[in-house]
């Protein structure tokens, strides 16, 4: 086939470029990429990297929406680029930028240190007064007890919610949606007894009270985790617990 014959539809990608060793400030570079019905934005980036410009930098791995590494801003919205089809944005142009609210390492690669630290801070592991020996078998947990926290356990740490969060953008200290949802995931797990240990941080100024309930986090979450819901629930629990602490006794049916 001649190049004329293969010349099909194309679409323009406007890609954020920043290289710490070379650039004082970021810029945008435009590329024409072939348009294919089944391509996602990530496919277009990979095509560019393979065929046109090997210097383009971004993270990706699974290409099936589960490893959480390919999040970028696509036309101003945080998206998993392996799940954002070119066809959604036609006729283009399509603007691709690093996730908002994070320092940029290079091109679309952001610095995740802050989140990794916060994730550890909320103690996302089973805390129990007493471990049951493995020989005694599994902890029993009914399907409905599982349902209490299942949704909050679906987080792939993709950071789209942070990129959408107006509070995190201005307040670095804020623990943020995904880490708070994960804290809640363990707090609500019938096998866990670590609620009290997580409370201090979660109920602090950097925790749930920083959230102004904009709800954008839940709107952009590709896994329907609903971090805003998790934060809201935690606020209700914190408030109840605050009032209960003034009562001389725990009313029947209100203890955990």
């Amino acid at each position, binding site marked *: 086939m001649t190049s004329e014959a293969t010349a099909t539809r194309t679409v323009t990608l406007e890609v954020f470029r920043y290289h710490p060793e070379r650039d004082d400030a970021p810029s945008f570079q435009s590329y024409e990429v072939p348009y294919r019905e089944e391509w996602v934005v990530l496919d277009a980036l990979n095509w560019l990297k393979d065929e046109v410009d090997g210097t383009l930098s971004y993270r990706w791995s*699974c*290409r099936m929406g589960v*490893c959480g590494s390919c999040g970028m801003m696509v036309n101003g919205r945080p998206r998993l680029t392996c799940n954002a089809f070119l066809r959604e944005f036609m006729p283009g142009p399509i603007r691709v930028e690093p996730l908002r609210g994070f320092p940029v390492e*290079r091109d679309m690669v952001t610095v995740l240190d802050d989140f990794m630290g916060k994730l550890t801070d909320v103690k996302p592991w089973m805390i129990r007064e007493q471990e049951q020996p493995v020989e005694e078998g599994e902890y029993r947990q009914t399907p409905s007890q599982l349902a209490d926290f299942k949704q909050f356990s679906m987080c792939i740490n993709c950071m789209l919610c942070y990129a959408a969060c107006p509070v995190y953008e201005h307040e670095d200290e804020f623990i943020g949606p995904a880490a708070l949802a994960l804290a809640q995931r363990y707090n609500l*797990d019938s096998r866990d007894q670590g609620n009290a240990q997580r409370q201090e941080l979660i109920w602090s100024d950097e925790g749930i009270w920083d959230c102004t309930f904009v709800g954008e986090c839940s709107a952009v979450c590709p896994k329907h985790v609903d971090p805003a819901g998790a934060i809201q629930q935690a606020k209700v629990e914190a408030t109840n617990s605050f009032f209960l602490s003034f009562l001389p006794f725990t009313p029947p049916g209100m203890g955990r």
Partner: protein
Amino acid sequence: MADDLQHDLLIVGGGGAGLRAVIAAAEAYPDLDIAMLSKVYPMRSHTVSAEGGAAAVIKENDSLDDHIYDTISGADWLADQDAVEAFVNEAPGEMIQLEHWGCPWSREEDGSVAVRPFGGMRIRRTWYAADKTGFHMLHALFQTSLKYTQVTRYDEWFATRLLVEDGRCQGVAAIELRTGVMRVVKAKAVILCTGGGGRVFPFTTNAAIKTGDGMAMAYRAGVALKDMEFVQYHPTGLPGTGILITEAARGEGGILLNTEGRRYLQDYNLGEPLDVTDPSHPQLRSMELGPRDRLSQAFMREQEAGRVFEGEYGTYTHLDVRHLGERLIDERIPFVRELAKDYAGIDPVHEPIPVRPVVHYMMGGIDTDISGATSLPGLYAAGECACVSINGANRLGSNSLTELLVFGRRAGHAAAVWAKEHPDFDSASIEAQGAEEQARIAAAYLRPREGGERIAAIRRELNAAMESGTGVYRDQAGLEAATEAIAGLRERGANLALDDHSHSFNTELTAALELESLLDVGEAVAHSALARTESRGSHQRSDHPERDDERFLRHSLAYRTDGAPRIEYSDVTITKWPPAARTYGS
């Protein structure tokens, strides 16, 4: 090379196997200084995409012997039976341990863990967390690992070479991706948990990071790669993308249909179909729940007979789950629905899913013993990069995730003990080797070069050679062509021209290093396949269609040389289950 990075134990790889090894060592020896180094953040590791489940005997109606027998027969008798026994015996405890660490296993009404049927297993024993089992296991392990403060993490560091001195592995050379600086990480013992190398093929369920780096590092250090000819094709991938539709779809009752609407597996010695409304459907170890090698081979035969659909992205048959109904689909295999909708544009509640065989898993890997030790003192391996071997000529679905736990833990313990017994380093020589590696990489890739080759071009040709030579059915001519092509690509691969000669997060450089690994892995696969003139499990030679226990009830061992690899063989350990015919479908 800046400051001195030095630990008792270094684990390379942060997937299921690596994390399990880290936790095992940290629990057993709280004073041990442990480090984990991974080219991606641990929770991005490919274990995350495992869907269907993890096998372990837990229910009353099951027995350890049954799981052992299923695994050995599934492996077409090439598994080491002492390893399989250890695996099956330790599996239940490992799975319960993971439950105690918070893994949200799906449950029965009474609160006990639920199990589902899986291919090649005669009893239901596959634990699952809906159809995101690997995701939940990985996150539970990673989050649990965060509580061990004695563990140093090197996230987004890319290991390129094992550092060997005095005949002992004493660390790795690795690039810190953020700065692009080559660093030496010294350790008294190293465990490779770097996963598989499915990316050597063009059409695969494997993520971009699955490039066999650990296998290649061990191979270059003189350790044998074992049973590399055994590559698993999963029978149900989405055409085009290769995205996996989990075996759980068939475990829950999904059926495979050809263009005539026939459940064609009945024509390939896999049993008689029961009607989907029959309460005994799906039948275990039969039809759609046969082993993967046999199902993928059946597809190829149907293709030859012209009974497959032709699509834009190749041929396919239908995986039909419609009769399960929307409620069950959403409860048990929601991810299947999500993936089919997003990437195949169909809703499995209303339409059959187009599927075809896709490269999925490497049974072969770094030759280890039952505690994860390799022939190189101080070097251990576990997980998909290792070959113990419990998988032999064909892995049973849902044995791999469990393998990560059992052998991750074993390797963690064994390596920790070694580290305690060998406190010394040869620092100067290790540093010198690191400097040498840095110089090698800079000279090969970080200088402008006129008229060099593009990475993508070599990778594409390698992929094509593997697909045409080492596919589901192989023969001598095809394999010879593949080995010649790979030798040629090796030469051309020494003349790559990169666009990017900078340091910070240079992913073109990592792609070049990954291509080096792929070439090593591809070479070992093709040569091992050429040498094995029999058919067994996933290795089918159309010119040698019979299994030949006399000559080949043996593991192949590929050793790297300057030319073609040297292939040797070692015995398979048989304890109680003498080789027999492999039968499916009662």
